[in-house]
Every structure is written in C-alpha cells, then in structure tokens.
C-alpha cells in the first residue's frame, strides 16, 4: 500500500473562498482543483496566509466554499464526516478532561460509550506517542509538544480513511518530530490511510509525501503538484541522498517563486 492506487478518494473541483474583514473583501483561495488517491500522502506547503488552513477547513466540511464542489469516496461532500480525521493547527484539547479522556472523546461521541477494548487501544496509542505516564494528567500539565501528540493520538484512534493535518508537528522538537514522522509513515503503511498534511518544513514534506502541493501567496493558487518518486519504506538516511536534495531544492525554488 505504499504506492498510491489510482482511485481518487477525494476530489476538489474549482473550490474558492473569500472573506470580508469589516468591509474589505479578502480573497483567501482562488479556484483550486485536485485529486487525492487512496493511500497517498500529500504535503501542502506555502507561505503564511496563503489559505492552507482555509482549504483544509473547507475539505473537512467545516466552512462552505464560495464556489466549486467536492467528492469524498465517490459521493458529494459538504459536511463533516467521521471517516475524515482532522488535526487542527491549534491543539484543541478539553482542559477539563484527562489525556486519556480526551483521546477517547471521538469514541464517546460516536458510540455513546467506551468499551474496555477501546480503552486499551487508546492506552496503547498513547504509549506509542511516548505519553504512557501521562494518561491521567490534564492537558495544562503537559508541554505544548506533548499536547500535540495527544491530538495526534486522538485523531489516529478514530481510524479515519482520510487524514487532514494542519501543521501537526509545529511545536515539536527536532528529534521528536523525526520520530513521529517515522511513526506516521509506519502507521500509514500499515493502515493505508490517505493523508493531506500542511507543513512549513520542506524536508518533512519531501520525506513524507508522494506529492508535494505548493500554494502561492494570497490569494492561494495551486502552483505545483510536485511528485516525489522516492522509494518506500523511507527512513531518515534518505535525507542526505542527492535525489532527496534535488527534490527539496525544486520545492524550495517553487515556493521562492511565489514570494
């Protein structure tokens, strides 16, 4: 499952979005079209304010686009769907729930209650994230990076078929980040989930992706869908290869053009 099949899981066609700030209209996203294939990892890069979060929020069904249409697994898509996992840019944990309770929230919501099996799975997931000892702590007792891992654990536990991630590793230190990158690759390989992820790190984008999408400065326009034809499974040694360097340089220059 490490190479994308040719079934489009998610189709975006001509989606555009504008906001008004007071009376001034702000065009956040110019009409954008693309397809995501099953089991594929796509990273979305682009300058701050280019509309990355806006695009993900539209795809998640949280805000309606001004124009265009979307299809998820063959059906028209315009509302939140529990098969789509969403990692928001800001860590959104409930301060009154312990870490474990936070991770179990989606299950509670969708199934009404939590079975012992699910609880064990959640505990295992937290252990994977290096949070074994913090199950009964509250979010404010953990560092920013730890909380981000809790959010990841919560989302992955839902076993979504499509994963939308908005800078999920932003607050992590270099080492943890690399560890989680590898963990994500492993999980994705095992479960075949499709991933669209926003990141500011070109290295991360190239390491993880099958394709890298580059957005232009505001108003966002999809200026490139660079394929990353590197073999899988991947690991950190890949970073120092010339092939990797070449693709990274290419992406960097594409972003540079947007400026």
């Amino acid at each position, binding site marked *: 499952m490490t190479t994308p099949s040719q079934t489009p899981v998610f189709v975006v066609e001509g989606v555009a979005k504008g906001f008004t700030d007071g009376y001034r209209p702000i065009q956040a996203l110019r009409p954008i079209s693309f397809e995501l294939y099953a089991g594929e990892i796509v990273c979305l890069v682009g300058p701050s304010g280019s509309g990355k979060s806006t695009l993900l929020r539209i795809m998640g069904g949280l805000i309606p686009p001004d124009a265009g249409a979307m299809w998820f697994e063959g059906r028209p898509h315009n509302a939140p769907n529990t098969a789509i996992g969403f990692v928001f840019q*800001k860590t959104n944990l409930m301060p009154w729930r312990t870490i474990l309770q936070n991770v179990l929230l989606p299950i509670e919501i969708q199934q009404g209650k939590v079975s012992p099996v699910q609880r064990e799975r959640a505990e295992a997931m937290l252990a994977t994230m290096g949070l074994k000892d913090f199950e009964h702590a*509250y979010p404010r007792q953990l560092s920013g990076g730890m909380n981000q891992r809790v959010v990841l654990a919560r989302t992955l536990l839902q076993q979504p078929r499509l994963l939308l991630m908005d800078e999920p590793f932003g607050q992590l230190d270099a080492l943890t980040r690399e560890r989680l990158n590898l963990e994500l690759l492993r999980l994705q390989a095992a479960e075949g989930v499709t991933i669209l992820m926003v990141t500011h790190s070109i290295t991360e984008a190239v390491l993880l992706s099958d394709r890298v999408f580059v957005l232009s400065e505001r108003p966002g326009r999809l200026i490139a869908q660079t394929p990353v034809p590197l073999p899988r499974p991947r690991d950190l040694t890949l970073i120092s290869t010339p092939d990797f360097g070449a693709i990274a340089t290419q992406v960097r220059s594409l972003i540079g053009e947007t400026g």
Partner: protein
Amino acid sequence: MFDAQKANFTLRAERKQAGTWRAGLAQYRMQLATPLVLVSVIALWALLVTWQGYPPFILPSPALVWQKFLLMAADGSLLLHIGVTLLEILLGLFIGLSTAFALGYLLGRHHTLERIASPYIVASQSIPIVAIAPLIVIWMGSGLASKVAVTALITFFPTLVATIVGIRSVDPDLHDLMRSLRASRWQLFWKLELPAALPIIFGGLKLSATLSVVGAVVGELMGANAGLGYLVNLGRGLLDTPMMFVAILLLVVIAQALHFVVATLEARLLHWQRV
C-alpha cells in the same frame, strides 16, 4: 497556551517549594483566621453596646441575643421557621436557576434573541417587588408560592447573565472539533458547552445563592405566617430586637451555608482548574 499554564505552575510550585512546614503553617493560619475575625467582630459588637450604651431594643448585646436564641430553640418553633424559609429558598433556587440555565443557554447561543430579550430581562430585575406585592399576592396567594416566586425572580438574573457569558466564552476551536466529530446537539451541550461554561456559571451561582436568602425574606415580609423573615417582622412588631437579631443571624448563617455548598461543588467539579 502552554506557557500560560507553566507560569501558573511556577507560581504555585514556588509557593509549595518553600517547604511543607511553611505551607502547613500558612494553611493553619488560614483556618485560624476566619474564626479569629468572627471572634473579633463579636467582641467589637459587645464593646459597641457597652460604650454607646445602646439599650437592648436598639442594639442588644451578643449575650442577650444568644440567650434569646437558646430560648427560641428550646421550644422547637425556631426549627419550624428555619424549615419554612429553607423550603422557600430551595424551591425558589430550583425554579430560578433552572429557568436561568435554560434561558441563558438559549440567549448565549442566539445573539439576536439576546439583544431583543435583554431589555425585558433587565426590566424584570428592576421592578421593586415590594411595590407589586398586591399583584403577586392576588396571583399567587399569600402562601408558599409567592415567596418562591420572589426568590426565583431574585436568583434568576445573576445566573442568567453568567450562563450567557459562559456559553459565549466556549472556545470556538472546540466547537469546530465537535462539529468535525458530528456531535449531536445533546452531546455538544453535555460534553462541551456545559463543562466549558461551568467556571463562569459558578460565579453567578454564588451570587444567586446569597441573594436567594434576601428573596425569601422579602417574600416573607410581604406577609407570612412562618419563616425567619416573619420572625424579623414579628420581632419588630413586638419591639423584641433580640428576636430580630436571632432571625437575622440565622439568615446570615443560611446564606453562608448555601455559599459554602456552591463553593464546595465548584471545587469538586472544577478541580481540573487547579491541578
């Protein structure tokens, strides 16, 4: 976000760090302070009576009030009066608070509705109840109902305002999360809105709890056959100031107890705020 909490930690941690014995001492001092202040208030009161030479019918001495209390407690009727007032308070609180929650939730979610309704809610609060007593007595009778109504009315507003503010302050990011999880209306309420609004709602609850006592007394002053407010009135009519003081002090004790219950509940439910 994260560092805010850390800084919080720092403050608490530094305090604790100072060593358990010092922390213990501080705790001890605290527990001592409240009764100490109480004792000094009573001492001041006694001194005032002695110095100013107030006769008992104006300001009775603490000793006299205590005697009166024992006397009234002895024949059991005092318990009845306390019970009546408590019943009025509890029923009034129940009605006032549940209405305030329901309406506050509605208005907190619908801004337009709130703007339309708020003048009327403000108006309902500023009507001097004593002035419309005849209407209340005609509509509700002179029994329990009218006292409960007054108590409900007076406890309603603070909790309403707090509920509106609380519901408004729910983190929109968490709203998005719940939407992305397709939470039902009901789940949204129980799992997000209620716990998120609770810290602010409790501020209003404390006010309401205190005011409920005033509500019951005002209701009883409109005309009553029993209750502590009735005792206040009776004491006044009989020129028996110590009786008034016994009733007033018991009312204060009830208010304290209610406040304590709410504060304890708050500490329980919001213990996550202090970890």
